[in-house]
């Protein structure tokens, strides 16, 4: 009977906590609105630990409040000498053993989850004759202050907007090309550092229903201080159903270089080829080695959610960005690598960049 009562209490604490926390933050960004298996495991662990900790806090608070109210020195007690108690073995055993039990309750799921989340055996399985593995693998490369996403089995590359299918595990290889960064999609799961030394591997999933609630667009962040524009090193995660994702991959694999139809964009292409092409590629099938890929791949630029990860996606902001990148992302590597452009050239370049798409949208 008593057991059931405590269980019921515990459950209600769980429920209330979940309710309160789900009100926190935006569904596309918050770790409190888990949108995949990894985030869910982590969220459950958070709730479990929070509940245990609240129990501890309540115990401490009760003793604390009683102690400081009941034993205050009252008027007329100025000379009272309380009994000098040495200690109590029983009490000390109690408050040693109970925390140990509580910690064991927390430690077991912690260790289990640690191993579960680190399980990337699927990545190492043999690919089929086309070189494609069953597992979807994305190579993430972090640079000051942009992200490159390479789908090695499909030999396509995109930047800034990661595209993933829902309801399946997506495996990641993570590395940084200059200084250490950290790859974090809060709503989908915890972060993993992109080291300069070694490749880190992990997986995430994106629940289709939760993705829809978040508008099929999650926010990703750099979580490791990497320089002045660390705060602005955002990326986006676009979720697609598995079929749509296959179509997208297909479109990426077969995409031809865009040949602009209107004259402004055609002029823009010329400017691009003179000033930008040495760093930026415009084809998703960029076969150059990663050291040569100095700047984000722009093949899908017209379909992006943001410009430079943070600005509204329109021609005006694009022109602002090209005019003075330093103003929007201090310390970036693009500033002063190209000649000054006049307003007309900017218009043309912007028209060209906005025409870069692989899907018909």
């Amino acid at each position, binding site marked *: 009977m008593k057991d059931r009562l405590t269980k019921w209490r515990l459950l209600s604490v769980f429920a209330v906590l979940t309710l309160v*926390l789900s009100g*926190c*933050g*935006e569904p596309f960004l*918050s770790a*409190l609105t888990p949108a995949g298996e990894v985030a869910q495991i*982590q969220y459950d*662990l*958070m709730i479990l630990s929070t509940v245990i900790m609240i129990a*501890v*806090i309540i115990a*401490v608070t009760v003793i604390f409040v009683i102690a*400081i109210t009941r*034993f*205050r*020195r009252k008027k007329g007690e100025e000379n009272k*000498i*309380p*009994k*000098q*108690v*040495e*200690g109590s073995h029983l009490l000390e055993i109690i*408050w*040693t053993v109970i*925390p*140990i039990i509580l*910690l064991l309750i*927390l430690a077991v799921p*912690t*260790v289990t989850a*640690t191993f579960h*989340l*680190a399980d990337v055996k699927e990545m190492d399985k043999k690919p089929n004759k086309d070189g494609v593995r069953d597992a979807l693998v994305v190579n993430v490369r972090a640079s000051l202050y942009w992200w490159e996403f390479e789908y090695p089995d499909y030999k396509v590359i995109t930047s800034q907007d990661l595209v993933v299918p829902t309801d399946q595990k997506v495996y990641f290889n*993570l590395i*940084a090309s200059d*200084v*250490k960064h*950290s790859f974090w999609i*809060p*709503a989908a799961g*915890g972060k*993993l*550092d992109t*080291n*300069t*030394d*070694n490749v*880190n591997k992990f997986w995430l999933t994106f629940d289709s229903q939760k993705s829809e609630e978040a508008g099929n667009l999650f926010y990703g962040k750099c*979580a*490791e*201080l990497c320089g*002045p524009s*660390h*705060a*602005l090193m*955002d990326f986006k995660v676009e979720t697609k159903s598995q079929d749509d994702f296959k179509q997208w991959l297909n479109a990426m694999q077969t995409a031809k270089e865009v040949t602009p139809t209107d004259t402004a964009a055609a002029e823009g292409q010329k400017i691009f080829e003179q000033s930008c092409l040495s760093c930026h590629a415009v084809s998703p099938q960029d076969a150059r080695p990663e050291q040569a890929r100095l700047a984000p791949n722009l093949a899908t630029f017209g379909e992006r959610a943001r410009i430079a990860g*943070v600005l509204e996606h329109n021609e005006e902001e694009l022109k602002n960005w090209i005019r003075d990148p330093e103003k929007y992302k*201090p*310390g970036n590597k693009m500033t002063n690598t190209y000649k000054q452009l006049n307003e007309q050239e900017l218009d043309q370049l912007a028209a060209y960049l906005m025409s870069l798409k692989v899907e018909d949208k």
Partner: protein
Amino acid sequence: MSTIAQKRGFASTVWDYLTTVDHKKIAILYLIAGGFFFLLGGIEAMLIRIQLAVPNNDFVSAGFFNELLTMHGTTMIFLAAMPLLLGFMNAIMPLQIGARDVAFPFINALGFWLFFFGGLFLNLSWFLGGAPDAGWTSYASLSLASEGHGIDFYALGLQISGFGTLMGGINFLVTIINMRAPGMTYMRMPLFTWTTFVASALILFAFPPLTVSIFMLMFDRLFGANFFNVAAGGNTIIWEHFFWIFGHPEVYILILPAFGIFSEIFSTFSRKRLFGYSSMVFATVLIGFLGFMVWAHHMFTVGLGPVANAIFAVATMAIAVPTGIKIFNWLLTMWGGSIQFTVPMIYAVAFIPSFVAGGVTGIMQGAAPADYQYHDTYFIVAHFHYVIVGGVVLALLAGTHFYWPKMFGTMLSEKIGKFTFFFFFVGFHLTFFIQHFLGLMGMPRRVWTFLPGQGLDTGNLVSSIGAAFMFVGIVSLLVNIVITSVKNEKVGNDPWGDGRTLEWAIASPPPFYNFKQLPLVRGLDPYWLEKMEGKQTLTPAEPIGDIHMPNGSFVPFVISLGLFIAAFGAMYQIDDKAWAIPVLIGGLVITFGAMAYRSIKDDHGFHIHKEDLIDENDDKGVKA
């Protein structure tokens, strides 16, 4: 002695402090220098919170913001919290064990001046081309990529001040092992002395890894080495390990003495001996020991693999047990006591819920998979401010009020003290509580700004308002100090009335030779024992005799100054400045010359003669 000091001119007082080897004066130096750096770090914090009050703010530039956050962290840990604690250790610990001074008074002075010049050097970076900007952790890939001399200031400044801290730690260890008064067994030592002892041991083992790694960083940046240069076969993860092998014990170097101060306050103002003294000692030692076993929990997301993560997760959780023991012992010390809510006691009482809140989030982070979410977000910022502000800074404020009369012979105003407490405490929770949620809602730490429309606006504004409250609190403390010093109403040996340990049996401030006769310690809380037997003074352990005292010395200042000068040479030689190498050599010549002078010249100190001691007003020492 104090009256004599007042009659001296300003210049001779300054000279006195520049050459002093008296632990009480060095304590005051630590308090002044640490307090100054604390204010600097506070101003940096205020600028950070102003910048983050609203989204897309451009109050400070991105690069400058990184300098601010780096210097805020570095200053607060290395130049404020630790020196302030060293100040209290210096002021109180020798008195608590009934010692004349620390074991090596000269080294004590040297430790202070090294810290001071190191801190000064680090902060000069603001005026010499920009402060360090890679965070207080200064992770290697970023710190090697950082342009300008900021990181060089960090490496050289911390190196110099780190020597000072290491010397301080060794000095306290030797003092506690060798210089306890007759009868002061280990298990009769006050808890503040115990925590000083354990923290000093941690310093002894934790600072060498820091020294080594900073040397490597310095050689990478200034002398062409490649320890952390991945392209040349170096490894940046090594830096992270080194840093946290130092960095985690560092947390306990800060918090253990804070626990010690609170332990003294709880038992004093509850009029009760500390509940479970021996388990408190045991818990302190255990925390110190475990503190070295958990560093990789700062690196759960580095990719060390599930085995390492699981081991360090469980080890981290284990620390909660001894810490919990301490919390309950404090609660039970109050239980059944007669609690008087003086300002120090208010801080101590407020510390419990604040620190418990910080502690439990620590355990939550111990659950490694959940930490993948918390790591490097504002959740972490909230957590470590809860333990460091809610633990260490509250202890420093409590200790300031508690020990002020012992150090300066006059009481800080209780009224203003309560005002300070109110604003600081409310501001503290307002600032940091909401940051837990900001982190969970997707706000990374160390961000210069944040974009609107991400649900982060309100939380950040609340946090900034809280910071303003804390600022008001600290300003009122300064006002309190000024008013108190101007009024200068002298108090007696035991101004709180309930002092339990030896330091309350001696005059406030104590004479420069401390106890006229070393006291005989007959149990835990020796002064309280004597008082309970109706005596006002301690039982002496020796007849009045000559007291041997060390001479003051200007050499520690010169040794430190030499390193300070040499650091400029080391730093600017990479710019091919012709003067740099001569300056580097010149500085080292000054340092080693001063050391040679110290070695060659005989300095036997002086004796205070028995007759002079008997003449002196007797309530300053112990009666025969």
